[in-house]
């Protein structure tokens, strides 16, 4: 037994590295942290970057390894989870870098941001690998509880505190509902292992189905809350707006991808078999929720004044788009989601990075602050413009290819109506993305004041993030092969 555990550690190194990094960060902050001087920052970020870099290298190295279930089947390390973890690690690193540059995170709290972000990442990684109900729940809670703290990071700001409280309340309730659903699933199947449940789900009588149907709905509520899909999205806009900008960026990447990964895994594990009533009702639920999520997210984004809030709504609609890939329950669907995740990561980062520097320079992130950006910072404005076009799904940018893949998965399963709904939604989305483009290009700048945030390093970082946004739209063959390799391993 003990040997078995030790043998498995090899596949668990990324997570362990992150735990060590997190503890190390706490020590660094405690030892060198000095509110006056802020002298600990160098060590702190060095530790964080090193830890994340090591994790990333480890993850990329293990992409080709055979899938395996470790620790009594509680975790499964397969190419799919590794891929999602890579996305989340890059996202976390970029967000920590952003928090370092952003004035939206108070100087004395930057250390805390890094520590908690790594903590959330650990939760997300557990979630991506979860192979039984317990790991899933622990993952979700680790992710959530730390997120509540992140949301209220601006301690003195009313809106930030409100965001934290709202997040915690919603999160607590949905976790409770989810647990309730899980307990019923456990009651019917008698196991918490996904592998064991799979056998039980094969032959069910009517009563059991009658119990399982609402239970799965409740189970879905918990996951749905994490990815902020309608009707569990109510918290998202306020939380996204109230939180400091780097936190918003973080929220729209890491918890979302983790939630999407677990939703996909649950769907693939439980419902990829023969057609039955449970499967059909699950697909129906997902279809309605996905369509609603996209539509509500997009329609609400139109009227926003704050770019951050607009991006928050747009990230809700992107979650809806990714869910369309989930409900296909096919390998093409999985591949599409992985591809979508990769492109979504870069697009979101570029958009939030630029918004962050604009906000720091002009005090807020209202649309008007983008006026005439192209006259002041042509390169940055062009990157923002590319990202906006990519987010709305215009070729030859990566956002289009991501959408193309999702459409392909939908039509492969003959879900034409959903494809059309998704298509019409991207027209709506184009409208509000164009709004920023319009302001940046057509309007004259409000003031001549340059944006200090666009220093050389930051421009370099933003350039590095924009390159994939363009390149993945043109040379996506190899990336698709990679995404194709990210298969979900179903433990029998």
């Amino acid at each position: 037994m003990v040997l078995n555990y030790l043998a498995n550690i090899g596949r668990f190194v990324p997570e362990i590295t992150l735990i060590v990094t997190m503890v190390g960060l706490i020590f660094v902050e405690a030892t060198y942290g000095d509110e006056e001087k802020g002298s600990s920052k160098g060590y702190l970020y060095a530790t964080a970057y090193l830890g994340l870099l090591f994790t990333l290298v480890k993850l990329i190295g293990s992409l080709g390894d055979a899938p395996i279930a470790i620790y009594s089947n509680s975790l499964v390390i397969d190419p799919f989870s590794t891929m999602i973890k890579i996305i989340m690690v890059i996202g976390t690193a970029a967000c920590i870098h952003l928090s370092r540059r952003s004035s939206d995170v108070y100087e004395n709290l930057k250390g805390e941001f890094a520590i908690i972000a790594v903590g959330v990442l650990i939760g997300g990684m557990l979630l991506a690998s979860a192979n039984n109900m317990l790991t899933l729940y622990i993952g979700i809670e680790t992710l959530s509880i730390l997120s509540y703290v992140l949301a209220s990071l601006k301690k003195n700001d009313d809106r930030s505190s409100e965001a934290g409280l709202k997040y915690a309340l919603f999160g607590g309730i949905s976790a409770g509902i989810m647990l309730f659903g899980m307990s019923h699933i456990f009651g019917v199947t008698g196991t918490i292992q996904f592998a064991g449940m799979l056998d039980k789900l094969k032959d069910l009588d009517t009563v059991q189905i009658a119990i399982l149907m609402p239970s799965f709905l409740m189970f879905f509520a918990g996951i749905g809350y994490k990815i902020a899909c309608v009707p569990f999205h109510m918290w998202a806009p306020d939380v996204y707006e109230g939180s400091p900008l780097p936190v918003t960026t973080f929220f729209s990447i890491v918890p979302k991808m983790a939630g999407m990964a677990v939703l996909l895994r649950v769907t693939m594990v439980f419902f990829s078999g023969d057609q039955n009533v449970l499967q059909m009702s699950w697909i129906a639920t997902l279809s309605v929720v996905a369509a609603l999520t996209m539509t509500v997210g997009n329609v609400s984004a139109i009227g926003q004044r704050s770019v951050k809030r607009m991006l928050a709504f747009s990230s809700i609609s992107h979650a809806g788009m990714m869910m369309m890939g989930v409900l296909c329950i096919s390998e093409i669907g999985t591949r599409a989601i992985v591809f979508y995740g990769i492109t979504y990561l870069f697009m979101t980062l570029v958009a939030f990075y630029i918004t962050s520097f604009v906000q720091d320079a002009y005090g807020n992130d209202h649309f008007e602050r983008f006026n005439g950006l192209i006259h002041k910072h042509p390169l940055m404005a062009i990157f923002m413009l590319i990202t906006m076009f990519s987010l709305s799904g215009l070729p030859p940018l990566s956002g289009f290819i991501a959408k193309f893949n999702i459409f392909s998965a939908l039509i492969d399963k003959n879900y034409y109506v959903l494809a059309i709904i998704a298509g019409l939604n991207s027209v709506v989305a184009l409208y509000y993305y164009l709004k920023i483009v319009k302001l940046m290009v057509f309007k004259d700048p409000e003031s001549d004041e340059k944006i200090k945030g666009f220093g050389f390093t930051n421009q370099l970082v933003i350039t590095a993030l924009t390159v994939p946004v363009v390149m993945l739209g043109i040379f996506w063959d190899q990336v698709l092969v990679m995404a194709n390799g990210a298969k979900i391993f179903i433990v029998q």
Partner: protein
Amino acid sequence: MSGTSNLLNWILWMPILGVLGILVIPKAKAGVVRLWSLANTFITLGLTVKLWMGFDNALSGMQDAFTIKMPWIKQFHINYHLAVDGISMPMIILTSLLFFLCVLCSWKISKQVRGYYALLLFLQSAVYGVFLSMDFFLFYVYWEVMLIPMFFLIGIWGGENREYAAVKFFLYTFFGSILMLVGMIALYHATGGEADSFSLLALREHADKFIGMNVSLFGFDVPFDKLFFVFMFIGFAIKVPVFPFHTWLPHAHVQAPTAISVILAGVLLKMGTYGFLRIAFPIFPGATVYFSECIAVLGLINIIYGAFCAMAQTDVKKLIAYSSVSHMGFVMLGMAAMTSQGLNGAVLQMFNHGTSTAMMFLLIGILYERSHHRWIVRPDGSKGFGGLYTQLPVYSIVFIIAMFASMGLPGLSGFISEALIFLGIYSKYTTMTVIALLGLLIGAAYLLWMFKRMFFGEVVEECKSYEDMNAREIFYMTPLCVAVIVFGIWPSPILNIMKGSVNSLVVLLAKYQ
């Protein structure tokens, strides 16, 4: 499969080389930017002429010598596949010519010259991409990419209400292309996702298979080919624009700068009809035949409705914009005939409308540079122009040529194509032919009425200070004048190019009638 010549690559990427060059030129050197763009478009024009020289009129399919095919995305069997045939060749000639002239006619633009020419050349490359792509995915990419430079060209260099026009144009076309995207992916999966599933040429082979298939939509079984024909139809119809999808056009035209109006009316509208001929018709021949009457009726509505709308306009640019709607109706009508004369007439009309309407827009641009308004009758009821004939004799003569060509007067290019269309349609839809002929009459009426109000009568005071066309303007009007007159008397150079390809399409469609 690839041919021996790399010419299509050169044509497609030459404008992009131009863009890169512009980015290197310093901001202050506006003159260099203009000359560079002129040289670039001239080289492309030269390459097009070379392509025309090498074009084999006897071939009815693709010109194999020029075909370029390379794998792009192996996972989806998407190829970088460029080829040219008799339907796209006239469009390529038109594009090369009009962009060259547009560089000349935008000489006076002084706002962000670099950006303007870079976007113009970028647009040119995208337009070539649409006409040259024989892979549906590649086609779609270019179809959409083209929107981006158009959006900025209208939005930055346009008139007062330019932002609204730019956004409306963008959203409308994007809506259409989304439906096309769904159709494209459906076709891919319907063919089994095998090799060449995105190839526009290979998809034709599956036409019979599509006819038998059904799609379940909300529990109803809908015939596959009819459903996706409609999707494609809407996508292309917005571009043409076919009534009732035409409402973006007048805004875009009125707000766009002259050169962009020329491109929009001269080339971009043809993309819609080209899309029908390249994609919707050959891939869904059954549905095409099934819906042919609808297409004819829509074409007819375009003709009559566009003509009446044009008559009501007091802004001369809007008038010409609506006349485009009317003229594109003839193209639709010719296509709906599905006879040899009808389709040949339609393609010829695409080319001829490109030259004649480009002339009209260029002339209005010339006038606008002098008057800074375009009112035939100002909103307060006073005359905007009057007696121009005595003031601007050269201008008036060129205007008369353009107007008569647009009207379809015998001896000028518009007549040949319209006559062919009527010949083609008459045997099929006799009543419609008669009504469409009435449209021709209304067309003559609004154009002559406009001419009377602007060029005859008392000279309006401010018109006295206008100068006649200068050498540059005469220079860029000349090729179009020559084209309009020469192809009016001797249309065979263009007809010979297209005949083979168009007739093979007619044969294909005839099987399903």
